[in-house]
């Protein structure tokens, strides 16, 4: 198991290096940040002065190697979105908001999606199956920004039940969490349903029933345990969905997380903050996937055996 984890950590390091390189060059392909930072009447001399201040006057390859050395020490440079502040510090300040929203969205998706997916499979063809499949179809087809805006106007403005945007108390979290969590909820429902149906069709389920075991025990203990591996694998992918979904949902609901910060940084061509936010997202994504891989290894002996061989 230790070797398995070591291999995964090494792969993670290579992936982070790749991300760091890609984000550096792609950010610079988007254009000159001075065209965003400098005022309309700025002269060529103003441009040259600011390029020197920001280190943009050096050859690209020199900038790249300096960047690698600096980020290895946790220094992403100064944020131009928040002058005078370290870019990584700005990003880390916004991480808790996204993690909080993402955690609630995912918790909702799993806590509602797993039982609903199971119920949908167990009571196939009944009303709850229809509800589960219908909500899953909507969740996968309706874009998060549209869902967000509709909820905002319905529950925030017309009905006045919930605050429209921003961070406040728990009520502020309901609409963005629903908008962000509906898609992964739909995926969990569908995967859980399909996985349960597959497991329930296995011969040993008939054997358990013929032994006179309680139906709830059969489903909850035997079928669920075997069916859970598929949604768990998807959980790692869901983190990516939530992180990218946060870009849209946080903008609609003015939620001060890294998704909205990423948009602001890209639009402002703030290289330092863009690089820091992408790297932090990448580390979160890979970290969660590492944990999922670890859990997968714990759940499935074949994975452990495969890593040993």
């Amino acid at each position, binding site marked *: 198991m230790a070797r398995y984890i070591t291999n995964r950590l090494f792969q993670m390091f290579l992936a982070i290096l790749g991300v760091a390189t890609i984000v550096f060059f792609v950010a610079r392909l988007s*254009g*000159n940040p001075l*065209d965003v*930072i*400098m*005022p*309309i*009447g*700025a*002269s*060529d001399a*103003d441009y040259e*002065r*600011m390029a*020197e*201040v920001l280190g943009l006057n050096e050859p690209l390859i020199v900038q790249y190697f300096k960047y690698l050395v600096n980020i290895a020490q946790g220094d992403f440079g100064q944020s131009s*979105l*928040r*002058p*005078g502040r370290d870019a990584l510090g*700005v990003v880390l*300040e*916004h991480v808790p908001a996204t993690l*909080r929203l993402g*955690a609630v969205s995912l*918790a*909702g998706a799993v*806590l*509602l999606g797993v*039982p*609903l997916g199971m*119920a949908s499979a167990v*009571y196939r063809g009944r009303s709850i199956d229809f509800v589960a499949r219908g909500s899953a179809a909507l969740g996968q087809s309706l874009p998060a920004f549209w869902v967000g805006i509709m909820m*905002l*106007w319905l529950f*925030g*403005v017309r009905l*006045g*039940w919930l*605050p*429209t*945007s*921003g*961070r*406040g*108390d*728990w009520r502020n979290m309901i609409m963005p*969490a629903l908008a962000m969590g509906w898609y992964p909820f739909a995926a969990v429902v569908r995967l859980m349903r399909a996985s349960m149906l597959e497991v329930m069709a296995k011969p040993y389920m008939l054997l358990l029933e013929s032994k006179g075991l309680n*139906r*709830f025990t059969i*489903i909850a203990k035997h079928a669920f345990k075997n069916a859970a591996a598929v949604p768990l694998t998807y959980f790692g992918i869901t983190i990516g969905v939530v992180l990218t979904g946060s870009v849209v949902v946080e*903008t*609609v609901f*003015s939620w*001060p997380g890294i998704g*909205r*910060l990423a*948009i*602001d940084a890209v639009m*402002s061509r703030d290289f330092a903050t863009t690089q820091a936010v992408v790297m932090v997202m990448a580390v979160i994504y890979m970290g969660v996937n590492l944990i999922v891989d670890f859990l997968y290894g714990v759940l499935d002996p074949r994975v452990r055996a495969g890593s040993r061989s």
Partner: protein
Amino acid sequence: MNASLRRKLTYRRFVAVALAAAMVLVACGGQDDETPEGSGDDSTTDDTTDDTGDDANGSADGPTGDVDTLVFALTPPDPETNRHWASGSPGQLQLEPYMERLLGNDLETGAAAPELAVEWEANDDFTEWTLQLREGVQFHHGWGEFTADDVVLSVELMGRDDSVLETAEMWAGAEAEALGPYEVLIRFAEPQIFALDFFSGERPDGFIYSAAQWDAEGEAGIDSKPAGTGHYMYDERSSGEWIRFTRNPDHWSGELAESETIEFRWEPEDSTRLARVLSGEAHVTDIGRELHPQAIDEGLEIVRSNVENHQSFLAFTGTSMGQADYEPNMDIPWVADARVRGALNKAINRDEVIEFIYEGDAKPIIALGWTPEREGWSDEWAADWDEYYGYDPDRAVELLAEAGYEPSDITPTLWSFEIAGSPEWPLLMEFVQQQWEQIGIRATIEETQFDIVREQVVDRAGAEGHIYPLRNTPIRQPQILQQNLFDAESRYGMFNTPESEDILDQWQVAIDPDERDRLANEFGDIKYYEWGAIPLAQFGAAFVVDPDVVAGWDFPGVTSAGMTQWENIRKD
């Protein structure tokens, strides 16, 4: 227990588990520590509930006139900072409530008026300005009295290497000297006829920081709790969320703002900002004009600035004929022909532009960059306006024929993009395209971004035949506008000719008022009669307010954000 009953019981267990899961989800999260004490979410809610017993979220229907915290749902500033030299125009708004300048702006006319300086005079060549400072002004948070030392510091800050102010170079070459505690001399490297604009709110320059705070705390002090002298005091900010100001009980004017606290909440989406006000969580917002009718239908009102200080226009590329090394792309020869530019101007119905794009809340520009009180203004421009800029599609076709073109020969590309504060531009470009199409001109719309446009226009060749929207906000002094945008040496290099370049060179160094007026007029004549741009609409700042809370607001609207004088907000 039979199988059917077992199934029913199991079904109920599933329902129970699902309900429990839903309750866990709803129960997640608690009171957010970072919620501002006086945020719209809380203070407005509490006040509204106390007064009206209305729903927990507050409502636009209920009378909320006595709210202590006035909440503004605003476009986020870029960047967020307390360092005004690092923000320029886009970030100016977040400093306005608590900072002051040497000069303010007259409420009715927008002209420079005493603020921290009470008198001023320039030497003969306008390189030295001596200002008498107001006595007895106290900085917030106990940082002592305002003196000439604070002006010396503030001039240094504006000229720093990391300054993004349009005038950074000018301030870097300037030097301020304290002649006494309440007298300061500012020396410029070159004559600065319009220094008063730079001392006042017309440009994003001139905020005065506390030297005492700077000496004690440096940049960290400005970043954490900057001291100003304004009607409000900086309180706190949360990155990406809000900034809050509290009322200054000891402002030097003796005036006391009505609201104890004002709070700007940053909301990137227009629709979210409008929703905030409609739900009663905010009371003022800066949504795009296309949403104003909807806001009015919902019972909200519009407050307007006293001065119409914004001009929107379309700029031509490929018309920098005064540039020695520039050779226009002759594959697109029409760009250099004044009659074609005239036809493009006369084929636009500005009344309709104003009605449909600006919701009737604007007027046509007579001469881009000029208002009647500015140097060089000519009454003839107003008299000739119908002939040169009035809507006349037949005359547009005639002008093209005189230039030797059929309308279908003219194929401009319209760069379509929006920038903060001008969300209407993409719609405007579609409107212009349709107007030109009515006389047979086939324009193509190319969706892009402003920074990409900036890059392309710097490299003059290759961008010919493109037309793009721009604004003159707040309306600059004519000379400043021309040298920033129309000078062949400027990055934009909009329309110019060898003759206009020669005049501009003289104009920039002239200090005799009559001479300047003559040169400004000659320059303006060339630009006006040769259709150097497509001037469209002039308008003031306009904001949506909840009339149950905001009864009135008197402000000139001369800054780029338009919003100032929060102390003049009258509550219901």
